[in-house]
C-alpha cells in the first residue's frame, strides 16, 4: 500500500534520504488510516451480513470450513442471520459483558450444555413456549430434563448431539484377538488388540487424544469409569477404580507416545501414525475422507459394569432481555427442523437432536460414524453417562481433577490409591461449592448433594 507512494516520491525528488522515505511512509500511513474511517467508522463486516440481521453467537463450528458450511445451512432457515462463532472464553466474556451492561446485542446463543449452564436459568429467557410447540419432534427425555436446570421451565432447546467412539484402520483388524467381535469389544479385548498390533508393527499404533486440547478426560468420565465402576463421581476412589487405573496403565504402555500431543485423532489416523483410536465423532470424520474403505468405526468397548458412553449435547438459547425475541424463536424453531438437522449431520458431523431419518448418501466418515453411534446407543449393555451437570463455573475444574489423576498415575507413575484419595478431596471440594446433586450414571437424588464415597 505504501510502496507506490514511496517510489513516486523518489523519482520526483532525489536523493533518497531516510527522512524523505519516512515522511512519505508516515503520510501514506495517516492517509490510509483516515480514508476508510471517513467512509465507515464501524469497520468491515466479517460474518457475512449487514445490519438488520439477527446475531447468532455460538461456541460451535469454530473451524473456518465448518463455520462456512453452517452459514450455508442457515440460509435455508428463512431468518436473516449472521453466524458468529467464538471460542469458549471470549464467548462467556462477551455474553457476561452484554448482560451486565443490560444491552444485549446478541439475539441467539448456541453452545454445549456445559457452556450454557453458567448462564442458566437466571440469565436466559424462558423458552417453554417454544419447547411446547416442538414437543412432537421426538427429543430425548434425558436431554429435555437437562434444559430445565432443575426447574419446571425450559431454558434451551436441544440443538444437536455427538458422542465418542472407536475408529480403526482396516489394517489393524487382522490383529484382533480370536473370538472378538469388533462391534462388541470389551476393554480386555481392546488391550489384547493394541498389544498384538504393537508386536506386529514393531511400535504402538493405539492412540488417545491426550494433548492439551484433547478430550481424554471424557474418556475417563464417560467411558472407563462407568464401564469399570458403574459410576463416575461416587465411585471415584473405589477398589474398582483402582483396577481401572491399573488397566489404563497397561493400555498406556501399548499407546503411541505422541498421544500427549494429539488433539484430533483424525490426523494421526489419516497419516497412519495411529491405527486404532478413541475420540469425539467430529474429530474423527476426516480420517476416512481420502480412503473411505480403509477404516471402520465401532462402539466403545464394554467393561465389567457395562458399556459406558457419553453423549455431548448442544443447545440454543436466548440471552435475558435480548432484542427481537420473536424472530430469534423463529430461528430456533427452524434450526430444529429435521431436514436442517440432517444437513448439519451431513456437513458438520453433529447428530440431530430431533428424530430424523438418517439418509443413506452421507459422506464416508459420517456414514461410518452413524452406524457406530446407533450401535453404541442401542447396545444392550449401554450405560449412559453425562458430562458434569450443574457444576456451573466449576465445570472445567472438575475435568481438571480427572486429567490430573491421569497425569499423576499414568504419566508420572505415582501410587494409585494415594493419588485417588488426594484427588477425591479436590473433587469433593468442587461438589461442595457447587452444591450439585449427582448425575448419571451415579444415582441422582434431587436436593441431595453428590458425595465421593
Amino acid at each position: 500500500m505504501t510502496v507506490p507512494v514511496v517510489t513516486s516520491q523518489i523519482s520526483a525528488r532525489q536523493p533518497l534520504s531516510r527522512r524523505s522515505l519516512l515522511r512519505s511512509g508516515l503520510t501514506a500511513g495517516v492517509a490510509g488510516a483516515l480514508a476508510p474511517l471517513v467512509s465507515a467508522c464501524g469497520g468491515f463486516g466479517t460474518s457475512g451480513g449487514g445490519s438488520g440481521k439477527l446475531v447468532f453467537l455460538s461456541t460451535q463450528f469454530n473451524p473456518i470450513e465448518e463455520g462456512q458450511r453452517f452459514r450455508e445451512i442457515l440460509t435455508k432457515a428463512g431468518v436473516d442471520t449472521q453466524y458468529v462463532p467464538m471460542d469458549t472464553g471470549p464467548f462467556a466474556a462477551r455474553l457476561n459483558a452484554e448482560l451486565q451492561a443490560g444491552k444485549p446485542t446478541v439475539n441467539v446463543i448456541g453452545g454445549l450444555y456445559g457452556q450454557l449452564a453458567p448462564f442458566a436459568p437466571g440469565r436466559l429467557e424462558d423458552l417453554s413456549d417454544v419447547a411446547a410447540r416442538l414437543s412432537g419432534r421426538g427429543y430425548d427425555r434425558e436431554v429435555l430434563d437437562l434444559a430445565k436446570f432443575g426447574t419446571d421451565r425450559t431454558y434451551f432447546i436441544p440443538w444437536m448431539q455427538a458422542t465418542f467412539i472407536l475408529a480403526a484402520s482396516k489394517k489393524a483388524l487382522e490383529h484382533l484377538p480370536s473370538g472378538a467381535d469388533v462391534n462388541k469389544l470389551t476393554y480386555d479385548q481392546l488391550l489384547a488388540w493394541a498389544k498384538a498390533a504393537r508386536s506386529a508393527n514393531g511400535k504402538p499404533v493405539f492412540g488417545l487424544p491426550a494433548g492439551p486440547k484433547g478430550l481424554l478426560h471424557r474418556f475417563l468420565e464417560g467411558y472407563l469409569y462407568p464401564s469399570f465402576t458403574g459410576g463416575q463421581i461416587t465411585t471415584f476412589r473405589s477398589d474398582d477404580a483402582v483396577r481401572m487405573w491399573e488397566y489404563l496403565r497397561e493400555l498406556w504402555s501399548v499407546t503411541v507416545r505422541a498421544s500427549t500431543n494429539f488433539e484430533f485423532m483424525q490426523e494421526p489416523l489419516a497419516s497412519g501414525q495411529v491405527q486404532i483410536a478413541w475420540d469425539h465423532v467430529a474429530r474423527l470424520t476426516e480420517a476416512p475422507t481420502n480412503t473411505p474403505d480403509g477404516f471402520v468405526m465401532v462402539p466403545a468397548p464394554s467393561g465389567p459394569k457395562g458399556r459406558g458412553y457419553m453423549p455431548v449435547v448442544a443447545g440454543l438459547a436466548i440471552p435475558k432481555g435480548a432484542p427481537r425475541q420473536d424472530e430469534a424463536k423463529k430461528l430456533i424453531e427452524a434450526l430444529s427442523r429435521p431436514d436442517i438437522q440432517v444437513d448439519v449431520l451431513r456437513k458438520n458431523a453433529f447428530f440431530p437432536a430431533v428424530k430424523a431419518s438418517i439418509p443413506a448418501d452421507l459422506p464416508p466418515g459420517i456414514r461410518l460414524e452413524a452406524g457406530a453411534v446407533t450401535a453404541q446407543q442401542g447396545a444392550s449393555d449401554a450405560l449412559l453417562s453425562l458430562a458434569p451437570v450443574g457444576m456451573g463455573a466449576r465445570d472445567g475444574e472438575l475435568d481438571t481433577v480427572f486429567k490430573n489423576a491421569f497425569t499423576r498415575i499414568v504419566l508420572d507413575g505415582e501410587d494409585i490409591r494415594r493419588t485417588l484419595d488426594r484427588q477425591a478431596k479436590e473433587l469433593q471440594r468442587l461438589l461442595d461449592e457447587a452444591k450439585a446433586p449427582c448425575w448419571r450414571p451415579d444415582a441422582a437424588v434431587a436436593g441431595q448433594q453428590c458425595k465421593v464415597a
Partner: protein
Amino acid sequence: MTAAGTAAPDRAAAPDAGVDRAPLARRRRNRMLVQVACLAITAFMAAPMYLITLAAFSTRESLNAFPKSFAPADVSTETLRSFLGATGVVPSFLNSLVVGLLTLVLSVAIGTPAGYALARHVFAGRDAYQLFLLFTRALPIVVLSVPLARFFITAGLSDTVLAVALLHTALALPTTVLITASIFTAVPRDLEEAALVFGCTRASAFRQVVAPLALPGIAAASLFTFVLSWNEVLGAAVLTLTNRTLPAQVLGSLQWSPLPYRFAGGFALLVPALIFIFVMRRYLLNMWGTTLR
C-alpha cells in the same frame, strides 16, 4: 622498505618465529563462532517459516503423508485460496489494517508529547511515574475483558473498529511513551538550546530540530505499536462481534481447524508481519541503538 622486504620471506620460512599468533587465531575463531551462531539463529527462525510456507502450499494428501518430506512435493494453492475465500477473512484483514494504523496514529499523537516531557523535564516522581506506566500492562487482558467490553457497550462503541483501536492505543501507550522518552533523551539538549538562541520558539525548535532527529526512532516505536495491534487477539475478540480483526476472526478458530487450514492461516498472518519488518528493519536497529546507549 628493506625491513619489510626481509621480513616477508622470513615469515614465509618460519611462520611463527617470534610472532605471537594466538590473538589473531582467537579472533578468527571468535569471528567464525559468531558466524556459526548467526547461521544457527537464522535457521532457528527460518525453519518454522519455511515449514509453514511449505505446508500452506501443499495438497491435503501430502500433508497427511507420514513421515512428511522436507522438500516441496506438489505445489497447490487450493487451501490458501479457500482460506482467503472464507467469509470474513478479507474484510477482517482490512479491519486489522485500519485498527493497526489508527492505533499507530493515536499512540504516536498521544505518546510522543508524553515521552518528550519525560525526557526534557525533571519533575517529582518521574521515575515512579515511568514505572507506574508499565503497570497498565501488568494486568492481563483476560481479567479486564468483561469490564472493558461492558464499558464499550454502555458507551455505544461496541463492535466497531474504533473501539478496538482505542483499546490497542491504551495497551501500546506505555511502550510508546517509554521508547520515545529514551529517543528524546538521545537528542542533545544543546541543539535545542542553540535553536532557541537563534530565534526559534519552543514549538518551532521542536519541529525543526528535535523532531527530524527523533523521527527514525519514533517510526521504529510506531512499528512496535503496529505489530502489537496486529497480533492482539483477546481484546479484539471480546470487543467485536461482526466487525472483527484478522486475529480475532481466525486465530481462535485456527486451533480447532484441520491442519491444512492452520498452515494457510499461519502463512496469511506471517506474511504481512514479515513485509513490515523488511521495510522497517533499518529503523528497528536505529531504535535499539539509541535506547541501549
